[in-house]
């Protein structure tokens, strides 16, 4: 039964569902695309002020239409009211920040709360007005998709198309001025006008999104998808695409759920869906996700352990200390101050990637590929030591620590530069600058 209904919703079997779904998905795409630039311009809260400032406009338009004897539930007229007072709110913020010494965050707080408070007061008046069909107005605060009709969805679709087209055509210009407005202005670009255009698109998306998502939550469709997208990529064009995708998917899922449970406010469900995608992105995002960073950290730690042991084994062979099981074990535990457990773990890591094997007597031996790796690691370490001694004026007692820290993150280009700086060593492994084999030298 429930599965049946779910399928009907998700496959868009009903006409009404199709209309609403089209509207919200288009809204998700528009918000996702323009939100990227809004976020990078660091103006996200300005959009929040705009949406809150729209409420007195909606209520005012309602009262005005009522007084003039029109149909006070005409959505385009209410949106026009929202647009006017939203822009007025934005103008107030810009005016206050520019011409007084009140900082932008305070200006945002003032405008947002005062406009919203005024709007709530107007709503109160409307509810006491006899004969005013005020029921629909509350939906502007929390959002309601069920009342969306074909014309509304088309309006959202057109707005989304405009947003996407402008962002494509002016992609380069938007990138320039959102990244470095001073450079852009010095380079002769009309930064003020580009900024105005960007903010106008944001206001447009905010206003058309009011009905579906509500005044309080509409900021989410502009901010959450781009923030989620950032975890997946370091490229702006990809970020825009992913953000649009996140916006669309969140809207699709949210609208689907709210169609099944009509009592849930649609705006909240859509934003909840976006929020879920955000959390998942934050955890597993391929560019900056938390797990990826953890994994990178862990894998560096492993590489470090393996390289340290490889070098210890190499130096052990060099000093011919590996003759007996006991002397080798003693050398390896003292070489880096490892406990037996740490050493055993490090040995397992090397065993797994085939760098070492165990002689029947119990001593550890480097395999051929293992010895090649060990020689390379040791060579890099000693080149660094020499380099630090000769070029960075590091005290001899500190070079080992310094080399230890750097060598594990050496890229091939750096090694090449190192070889260039120290040509006398050619490709051989230089002798250690310390006395090898005493245990102390390699600590």
């Amino acid at each position, binding site marked *: 039964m429930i599965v049946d209904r779910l399928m009907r919703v998700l496959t868009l079997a009903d006409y009404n569902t199709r209309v609403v779904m089209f509207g919200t998905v288009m809204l998700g795409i528009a918000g996702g695309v323009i939100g990227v630039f809004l976020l*990078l311009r660091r103006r996200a809260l300005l959009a929040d002020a705009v949406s809150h400032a729209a409420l007195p406009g909606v209520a005012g338009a309602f009262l005005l239409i009522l007084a003039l004897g029109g149909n006070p539930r005409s959505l385009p007229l209410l949106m026009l009211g929202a647009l006017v007072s939203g822009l007025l709110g934005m103008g107030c913020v810009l005016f206050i920040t520019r011409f007084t010494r009140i900082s932008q965050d305070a200006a945002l707080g003032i405008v947002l709360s005062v406009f919203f408070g005024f709007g709530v007061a107007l709503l109160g008046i409307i509810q006491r007005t006899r004969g005013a069909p005020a029921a629909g107005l509350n939906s502007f605060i929390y959002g309601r998709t069920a009342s969306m009709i074909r014309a509304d969805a088309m309006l959202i679709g057109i707005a989304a198309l405009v947003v996407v087209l402008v962002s494509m055509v002016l992609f380069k210009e938007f*990138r320039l001025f959102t990244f470095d407005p*001073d*450079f852009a202005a010095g*380079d*002769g670009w009309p930064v003020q006008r580009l900024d105005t255009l960007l903010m106008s698109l944001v206001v447009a998306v905010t206003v058309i999104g009011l009905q579906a998502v509500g005044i309080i939550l509409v900021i989410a469709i502009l901010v959450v998808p781009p923030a989620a997208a950032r975890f997946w990529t370091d490229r*702006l064009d990809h*970020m825009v695409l992913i953000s649009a995708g996140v916006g669309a998917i969140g809207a699709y899922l949210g609208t689907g759920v709210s169609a099944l449970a009509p009592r849930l406010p649609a705006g909240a469900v859509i934003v909840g869906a976006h929020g879920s995608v955000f959390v998942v992105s934050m955890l597993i995002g391929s560019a900056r996700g938390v797990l990826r960073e953890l994994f990178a950290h862990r894998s560096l730690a492993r590489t470090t352990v393996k390289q340290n042991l490889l070098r210890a084994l190499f130096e052990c062979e060099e000093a011919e200390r590996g003759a007996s099981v006991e002397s080798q074990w003693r050398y390896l535990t003292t070489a880096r101050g490892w406990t037996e457990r740490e050493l055993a773990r490090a040995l397992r890591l090397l065993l797994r990637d085939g760098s070492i094997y165990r002689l029947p007597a119990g001593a550890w031996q480097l395999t051929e590929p293992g010895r090649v790796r060990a020689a390379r690691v040791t060579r890099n370490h000693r080149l660094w030591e020499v380099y630090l001694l000769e070029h960075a004026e590091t005290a001899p007692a500190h070079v080992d620590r310094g080399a230890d820290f750097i060598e594990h993150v050496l890229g091939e*280009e750096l090694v090449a530069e190192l070889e260039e700086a120290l040509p006398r060593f050619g490709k051989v492994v230089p002798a250690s600058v310390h006395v090898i084999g005493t245990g102390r030298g390699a600590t």
Partner: protein
Amino acid sequence: MGLEQMSSPEADGNRCSLHIRDLTVAYHRKPVLWDVDLDVPPSVVAGIVGPNGAGKSTLIKAVLDLVPHASGTVEIFGKPYRKQRRLVGYVPQRESVDWNYPINALELVAMGLYRTIGWFRRVGPVYRRRALQALADVGMADLAHRQISQLSGGQQQRIFLARALVQDAEVYFMDEPFSGVDAATEKTIIAILQRLREAGKTVFVVHHDLETVRDYFDYLIMLNMRVVSAGPVAEVFTPENLRRTYGGRLTLLDRAVDAMGRTR
């Protein structure tokens, strides 16, 4: 355009790469720059020095029209800045942008070519090659596709320079390019200044380190809210001028300015 101006002989002011008359800049009515007059000849590398809060960055920003002027005129090669934008290149302070922005080194450098490319058009392969060449010029060709947050401070400074180089300007304004950079970057910047000088360009550099003034610059602007002294380094870089720029508060002027800031 700029070359025409340069070759017109002896026309007063026209031979100046930068000509400033009576420039005053104020934030909230408190003056930051006061009655600045400057006439800088072309083809010099000019240092701009002065204590913190002397208005060094503000001078550059005022020339580039990034902050409003309370009064005064600015001309580049004898014409108002607005008409000469294409002759000007700019290296802002490194701290002025968000280095977590999703963009790589090559794309950032290509920004310097945007005005050549023009509105709406994409950055084609020809321009990508030019940006890559500029990256090579600052010794960063192999890091072209690195995301900018993964670059060191010195490398970030170098791609800012590369972006200005591809602007192919006649007059450059660089805001503290030497601040907090490594030795390799410092060498790169010096080499680039040298190259620009040889190519007959004019470069203005906001600078902090007085010890290197004689090595880097051949012209010096000593600034402390107003121009204390400006001219060839050999002439103006004197203990007397240094004392006037850095030493001792200019009590009367300071107090007048403070009072203006308070009362309005």
